């Protein structure tokens, strides 16, 4: 203390007031950034790039309800999305809301994914909202872990002009018809090489897609890549259904040459008029609307049934406040208005059943085959078991070679041997992971 301070008079009322004012001002200044600090941010991870506008639309609505919450939508390619989930879930670094297919089960079983909160559980468990198949697809041991959003389901897409030119009045009804139709629909050059495939089959590409498509075709013959019995699984394709399916591929690729491996395939070929028919999910409708709006086409249910791959929204975040907000977002995504927008603008089929989609279906009749199918239509999904990806990936690698093997074409014994070797590998994987049970 200086001598000057020592002789200064004690602070009077005005000095005290000044100090109080200063303190109040300081407190105000310090408190000023508080609203910004209170701004919450939720992150959403998606693996379907076409869904970004949908999630952003819901985020805009969410912002109106919760002005202090921002939603960041981070969309990357599906395979990369799967990788980031696999890396982030064990380390607790996943986004607040994530999209998952069947893999949610393994995270739930490992305790890395908390169950849904009371509001989301009540919403999902209400049979008015979802069928049991869909409810089960987001549950483990009867406990709800996510909110269903949309599903992948397959139908036949066919070019009506090409069908008319080939003298075909309607879609094929049986799997045998598919090959007959493909022969009639294939357009060839002067050397007999196909220039427009009669039926675009998945013959190449990475990952398990080849085996998934094989399974869809085999389902029409009553087969399955893996089948459950008493909670255990076994390969169920080294049989007549598997033989018929593989034989049909070989007939089309090698014997009748209605399609060749180097031709453009799938949705791209269909949009470009380079294939007459192919089997795919509903997103193709939105894709065609963007890329080939004038394309004359129709859809039809498959002969026996279809794969259904449900996709749901899950909330791995442990922060209770953020989790509550995140669940609220998943419920908002399931608002009827948003689901109708999803169907109309993106093309994926929403899972919620108590919503009136008739306006969209009327305007886009291609959706009809996805919702109005025969009574005995049967559905299957990928099993919620860890080794399913490895089973399908390894089968896909074998099929990719098999489809081009002339030694298999027309040779039932060789086809049977091929399928037995593949099924043995499938069963070995199931045994190693503790999922195998004898048929």
């Amino acid at each position: 203390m200086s001598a000057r301070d020592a002789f200064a008079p004690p602070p009077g009322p005005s000095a005290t007031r000044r100090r109080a004012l200063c303190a109040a001002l300081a407190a105000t200044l310090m408190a000023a950034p508080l609203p910004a600090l209170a701004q919450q941010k939720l992150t959403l991870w998606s693996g379907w790039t076409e869904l970004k506008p949908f999630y952003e639309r819901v985020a805009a609505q969410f912002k109106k309800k919760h002005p202090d919450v921002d939603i960041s939508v981070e969309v990357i390619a599906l395979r990369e999305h799967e990788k980031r989930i696999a890396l982030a879930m064990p380390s607790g670094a996943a986004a607040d809301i994530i999209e998952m297919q069947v893999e949610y089960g393994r995270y739930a079983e490992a305790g890395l994914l908390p169950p849904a909160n009371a509001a989301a559980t009540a919403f999902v468990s209400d049979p008015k909202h979802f069928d049991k198949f869909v409810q089960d697809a987001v549950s483990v041991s009867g406990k709800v872990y996510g909110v269903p959003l949309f599903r992948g389901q397959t139908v036949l897409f066919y070019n009506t002009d090409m069908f008319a030119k080939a003298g075909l009045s309607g879609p094929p009804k049986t799997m045998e018809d598919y090959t007959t139709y493909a022969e009639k629909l294939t357009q060839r050059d002067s050397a007999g090489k196909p220039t427009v495939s009669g039926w675009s089959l998945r013959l190449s590409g990475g990952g398990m897609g080849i085996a998934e498509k094989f399974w869809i075709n085999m389902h029409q013959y009553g087969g399955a890549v893996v089948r459950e019995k008493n909670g255990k699984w076994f390969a169920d394709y080294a049989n007549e259904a598997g033989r018929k399916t593989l034989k049909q591929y070989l007939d089309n690729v090698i014997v009748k040459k209605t399609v060749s491996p180097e031709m453009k395939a799938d949705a791209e070929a269909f949009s470009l008029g380079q294939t007459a028919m192919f089997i795919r999910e509903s997103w193709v409708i939105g894709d065609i609307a963007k890329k080939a709006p004038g394309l004359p086409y129709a859809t039809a249910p498959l002969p026996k049934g279809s794969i259904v791959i449900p996709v749901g929204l899950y909330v791995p975040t442990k922060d209770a406040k953020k989790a509550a907000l995140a669940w609220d977002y998943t419920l908002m995504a399931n608002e009827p208005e948003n689901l109708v927008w999803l169907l109309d603008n993106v093309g994926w089929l929403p899972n919620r059943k108590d919503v009136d989609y008739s306006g969209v279906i009327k305007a886009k009749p291609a959706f009809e085959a996805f919702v109005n199918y025969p009574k005995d239509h049967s559905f299957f999904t990928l099993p919620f078991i860890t080794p399913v990806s490895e089973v399908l990936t390894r089968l896909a690698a074998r099929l990719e070679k098999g489809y081009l093997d002339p030694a298999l074409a027309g040779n039932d014994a060789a086809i049977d041997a091929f399928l037995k070797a593949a099924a043995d590998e499938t069963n070995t994987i199931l045994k190693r992971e503790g999922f195998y049970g004898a048929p």
Partner: protein
Amino acid sequence: MRSGARSGLGFALVALAPVLTIYATVRIYPIAETLRLSLHNWNIISPRKPFIGLANFEELMGDALFLEALRNTTIIAFAVLAITIPAALALAALINHRYGSRLAGFYETAIFIPHVVSLVPAALAWKWVFDAKLGPLNWLLGRFGVAAQPWLYDPVLAVICVIVLCAWQAVGYAVLILIVGMRNISPSLYEAARLDGANSWQLFRFITTPQLKPVLLYVSVVTLISSFNIYAQAFVLASDSQGAPGKLVRVLVLDMLENSFRNYRVGYAAAEAVILLAIVLVLTGAQFRLFRDRSAAS
């Protein structure tokens, strides 16, 4: 004197400590952890990682997909090396020959661009080049009466496509390093050789090439290691192409990623990584030995 040397060593250690710490954290630790994981069975999410000894390695020896990936990767790596080094040497010699010309900078840049251009767009451009129906390569072959080839689908042609893409990317870097090496060769050697009547080919054969051996060793090692690590080239050229057909050329890194993040077998993928590490170490050692022996002999 002794205390001075000791304090100098201490200072060096302190100065190097941050770099060594970072290096140990981002290089040594992951390698050690990979070695450890390769002896365990771990599904990425389970806290349990039971020790299984060499079981992962035993399984790998009978795994058809792994063996295919190993075969493809080895073929690609050696083919890229076999194409890149001679091509880079020839191009570097030509560019060096034009040293000082107005276009020298342009040549160097043009050759180096493929190395710096982003891989995915480059691979997509090559995908178009190789397209069986619309690609300019088949169009060009057609002008000479050669039938269109399914470049991206045929199992052999698909591997060749990957080799071409990798070599195209690698050659720019190799040329640049070799040019630097060539410019460091003493001009007096060439002058002496010329006085002895050596022609251009003899200058290149008996002066340039031997003088470049350390640089060639470096470029060869880098090219071989990076070729063994290829992934994106094969992935973009062929895989997950729903519209365009494409044969997935299975390479080691792709197989590892699939086992880690799709099949959730991290220990198994780590065993693959250990084998890749061993191959690269052995081949690098062999290259060092080869070049050293030849240098000693010459």
